[in-house]
């Protein structure tokens, strides 16, 4: 039996992380292994089909897995999430000296987003603009920075390119607003992509949650044990700490599914997936 986990290889460090976790979990008596996917869509179908026991899902992958599993009558069990997956926001920023003072005033302007499948830098911020009465298709020129398609925005490149476009030297490349997650607003500020004082936050989404780990079927004792071990990982453990740092958490938390309503709505608005979890986004083929 054992536990087979699927994870998306959005960065080479994913191998280091799961090799390390695998060694530790096996020491703890769980017969654990993992497989890597080049994109979340394949991982989701394999999870629902039961080819992997558990999947480390992006928020968008969770939305699709939930829909696909429900349509097929397959139960899914949430296992855990990171402390850093809880209570995030996305923002829409403009240049500090921009004449645009409200979301409504973005009408007729160019808005830069991340990749088409990025929850934090595309789907959620565009949903925020819709809530303010703007139709991204009709009222705005959306300029998408499609880096790492299929990685659901895990690759920071699209967001960084969108931020850079605010200050593009060539007016033809310049955008009026850019969308990003709150943590990247801070990262881009500190690294100088968006120098301190250079941008103004025009709007921000309500709080939402990010990645969540999901098991196929009703939780088996093995999955339950696997989940308990993850929750028990101690940041004081010198063997685990570098892996936790790479994975970007201090502590695994019990899962909660209350933080995905915004994204569910955004997916419907954008027609990204249908109610049964089929990919319906135009031209999206990871």
């Amino acid at each position, binding site marked *: 039996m054992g536990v087979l986990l699927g994870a998306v290889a959005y960065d080479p460090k994913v191998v280091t992380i799961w090799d390390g976790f695998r060694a530790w979990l096996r020491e703890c008596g769980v017969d654990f292994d993992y497989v890597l996917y080049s994109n979340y869509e394949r991982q989701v179908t394999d999870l629902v089909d039961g080819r992997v026991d558990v999947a480390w899902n992006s928020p968008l992958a969770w939305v699709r897995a939930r829909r696909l599993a429900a349509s097929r009558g397959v139960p899914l069990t949430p296992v855990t999430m990171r*402390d*850093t997956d*809880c*209570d*995030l*926001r996305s*923002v829409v920023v403009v240049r500090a000296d921009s004449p645009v003072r409200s979301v409504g005033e973005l009408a007729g302007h160019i808005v830069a987003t991340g990749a088409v499948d990025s929850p934090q830098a595309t789907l959620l911020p565009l949903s925020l603009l819709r809530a303010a009465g703007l139709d991204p298709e009709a009222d705005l020129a959306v300029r998408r920075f499609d880096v790492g398609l299929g990685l659901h925005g895990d690759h920071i490149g699209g967001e960084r390119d969108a931020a850079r476009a605010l200050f593009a030297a060539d007016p033809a490349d310049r955008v009026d607003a850019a969308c990003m997650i*709150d*943590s990247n*607003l*801070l990262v881009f*500020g*500190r690294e100088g992509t*968006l120098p*301190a*004082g250079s941008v*103004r*936050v025009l709007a*921000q989404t309500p709080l939402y949650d990010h990645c969540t780990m999901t098991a196929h079927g009703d939780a088996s004792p093995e999955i339950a044990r696997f989940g308990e071990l993850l929750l028990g990982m*101690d*940041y*004081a453990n*010198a*063997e685990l*700490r*570098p892996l936790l740092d790479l994975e*970007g958490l*201090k*502590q695994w938390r019990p899962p909660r599914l209350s933080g995905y309503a915004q994204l569910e709505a955004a997916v419907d608005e954008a027609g990204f997936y249908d109610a049964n979890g089929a990919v319906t986004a135009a031209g999206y083929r990871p």
Partner: protein
Amino acid sequence: MPAVDLAGLGLDEGGHLLVARALAGLAAGERLTVTGRHPALRLHLAAWCRAHGHQLAGDDDLTVVRGDADDRRWAGAVRAGDAAGVPSPRADLGWGLAARGALVEAGGPPLGARWSEREHVWADIAPQLYAAAAASQWDPATAVDWAVPVDGVPAEVERAVVQLMTYLVENEQAALIIPARLLSQLHPHYREVMQLLASQAADEARHVEVFTRRALLSGGPLGTSSAGGRASLQTLLDEPDFTTASFLLSVLGEGTFLDLLRFIAEHAPDQVTADVTRLAVRDEARHVAFGVAHTAHLAAADKSYLSTLRQAVERRHSALQDTAGLNAEVFDSLVVLAAGSWSPEAISLGWRAVRDLQSRMDEGRRRRLAYIGFPDDEAAELSALHTRNFM
């Protein structure tokens, strides 16, 4: 409640330093009120707290609840010995490249160092010797007046000088590689020894340069390199142990070289030859001092180590028994150098001078062996087993 005011500072321009500093004084679970005027302060603070394991509370004000990630990170940390005092008897490989005395976070890759025990590498004089080495570095370009002509040197004597320089370069190259190899296996906790070995390798690099330049001054080809001489040096490179390698190279080899270099300087037919050999003697004396002090330090702590040293000399002797040892042309060149000409009378004087040199070398080795702890008779016996190749 403790509070920190960031004024207009954002967390994208250093504001997090003030927050982190204020949190450092609190226990996990305690609260800090943050105030400031930066328009994105709440967004920044939320993202920063999330990434650092703190919690942002408060809807109207900004309250940070300190998390325990930082405490957990440093829970298993230890000091890598004492920065100001003597190095630790054992250097933990887990300290890695951390500075002596640093607080070392647990985890991280262990160092692959082979020499991590003080007794195996240390000498109390190492810090002073390193200080002396650092203060005595010289520049080959200016320490020697390369413009002084050598065309007054008789051709046959010049050939002897070139042969000797060729031989010296070969030996200095071995003497460079050995400390460099020991250095790469040494735990940096013993930093004074590390620094000293590094300066020793740098010394030899300069010696290689100046001897090469002297050999080329008269424009002719270099001399010969004998198979026996190289076999003798190879046995030094093959010595696996730190102390026995240091003993064979520095105590016996470089110790013998002190007399050799002084001899060449004394009989030098030109100023450049005299200068390059005198400069090298100054450096070699430090190498010998460390080798003797370290070997004596270990032998004093463990008398039985003398037999290990003895075996190393015997092993090297038997490995070289069937080789010629010293390049005959090197020996002949020493005679010609001291003779200054090929007349029978001069050669006779040169021959006697080299014989005296060999007996001074033997006396020096016996003195150093006695200092390390060998009884006089054993010191004499071991000195006699030393390679004919001098180094």
